[in-house]
């Protein structure tokens, strides 16, 4: 079941994105090579690939954080010229502000939008309850574990209710158990909200566990674009099914592991 997926106009549309980086020694890296992609409302797309193959550049270009040499990104029909509140971002690096209490972090986006303190903290507490952090609403981020800070980041983005969520390996540095727990939290939030999610990962299992569609990026280009027709929410048994295993082998081949 692809929750919330329908076949209306794409919420994200990428056309001919190309970008190069120049290394210190003068050599060039082609981070994006003519990438075109349409993303439909409610899709959970996992962008899979090895390190240094352009996944983060692609996500940053969609977020409006990375200008590209050629190509266009349209979000909700409007051209992307920079970051926007229609696209929430969760970074791989710990981005939760250490100088704000947990609830203030979650309410930050609402504060920027000018919501009154009482209103924004009320909404923040609702989000914290959804990610299981009500008990630490008044704590400082340094008092939390890495997994809890990742939950705070998720709650902060969901508090502003952007239609598109961009996540750049948000669980990449977490231990296996915490990662699985957070995958479940994100899946549940996506299931409830029906948001469109682009989730960058280098973990094949994570991509298969979360995605309704997996896109493999290699050398800056889309090497594979495949729908994941497995039940949702998924279990390890689903991934071990013949269909799941076939997909896994396909993705591993693209990753150069088989």
């Amino acid at each position: 079941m692809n929750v919330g997926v329908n076949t209306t106009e794409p919420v994200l549309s990428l056309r001919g994105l190309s970008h190069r980086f120049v290394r210190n020694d003068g050599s060039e890296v082609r981070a994006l090579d003519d990438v075109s992609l349409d993303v439909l409302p409610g899709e959970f797309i996992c962008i899979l690939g090895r390190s240094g193959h352009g996944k983060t550049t692609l996500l940053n270009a969609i977020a409006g954080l990375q200008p590209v040499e050629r190509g266009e990104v349209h979000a909700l029909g409007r051209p992307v010229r920079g970051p926007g509140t229609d696209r929430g971002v969760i970074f791989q690096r710990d981005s939760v502000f250490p100088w704000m209490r947990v609830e203030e972090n979650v309410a930050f986006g609402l504060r920027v939008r000018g919501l009154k303190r009482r209103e924004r903290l009320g909404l923040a507490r609702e989000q914290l309850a959804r990610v299981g952090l009500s008990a630490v609403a008044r704590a400082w981020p340094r008092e939390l574990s890495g997994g809890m800070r990742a939950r705070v980041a998720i709650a902060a983005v969901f508090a502003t209710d952007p239609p598109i969520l961009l996540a750049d390996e948000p669980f990449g540095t977490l231990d296996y158990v915490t990662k699985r727990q957070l995958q479940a939290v994100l899946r549940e939030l996506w299931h409830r909200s029906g948001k469109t999610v682009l989730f960058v990962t280098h973990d094949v299992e994570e991509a298969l566990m979360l995605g309704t569609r997996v896109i493999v990026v290699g050398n800056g280009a889309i090497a594979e674009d495949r729908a994941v027709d497995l039940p949702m929410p998924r279990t390890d048994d689903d991934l071990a099914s013949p269909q799941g295993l076939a997909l896994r082998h396909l993705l591993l081949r693209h990753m150069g592991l088989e």
Partner: protein
Amino acid sequence: MRRDAAARPPLASRWQRRGNAILVGVAGLLLFLFAWQLAARALPASRMASPLTTARDLAVNFVVAPRLRVFGLGRVGYGELLLYTLRNLVVGLAVGGTLGIVIGVASARLRLLRVLVDPIVLVLGTVPVLVAAPLFLLWFGVAPFTQVLLVALYSAVMMVLFSERAAENLDPTYERWATTFGAGLGARLRFVLIPGALPEILGGLRITLASAWGLETFAEILGAPSGIGQAIKALTNLNNAAGLLACVAIVAIAAIATDMLLLALFGRITRWA
């Protein structure tokens, strides 16, 4: 849910560490007083007063110091003169420090502002106080405003440099995250750059405060209607070693007290760190 990331040492251990620090501080002070006493014994009384004589001079002249009246300072004591110095210092530091922090943090992010600010800071920072202070006296006269301006200017220059570096050292991920929530430069300055860079900025502010004491006192010695610097100038003319040392001691005590106050304030503001 367990909070496991930043376990703090137990309260007893923290108190023990604080107690040890106080003990070391007291030992250092005793050693300093002992050396001072030795120097007072070795030198003639007209050049060096003992710690006890100095303390007596301080106590006697704290409210009213009659010998300063002939220098046109009126019926004042060291205490009132110190208050004048402190008031100028606080106003100068507050104005200059605030300006310096805002300009420094903003110029770390606005290239145009930086191109404009850096040469000015470089020029002002390299002009010695010995040169700037007489010029200020010439331009603005013997008035409190002259000293306030001097302290504000040098504080601003120092704080621009400290704040620029503090903002540059802040992890850019925080600012990038803020932009994704729609935060413009104003919101990023207010909610991200300044609070995030604050621990490093406050470290710089302590150094600026220490310098400001020297600046203010020196500016008063050159020419001011009041202030502890004027007392130092008068007592130098009188060859009064005990009075001079009393004034130096009172400035040192006030400088240490303001530093401790600032430190306590930092602890409160940056309790998240």
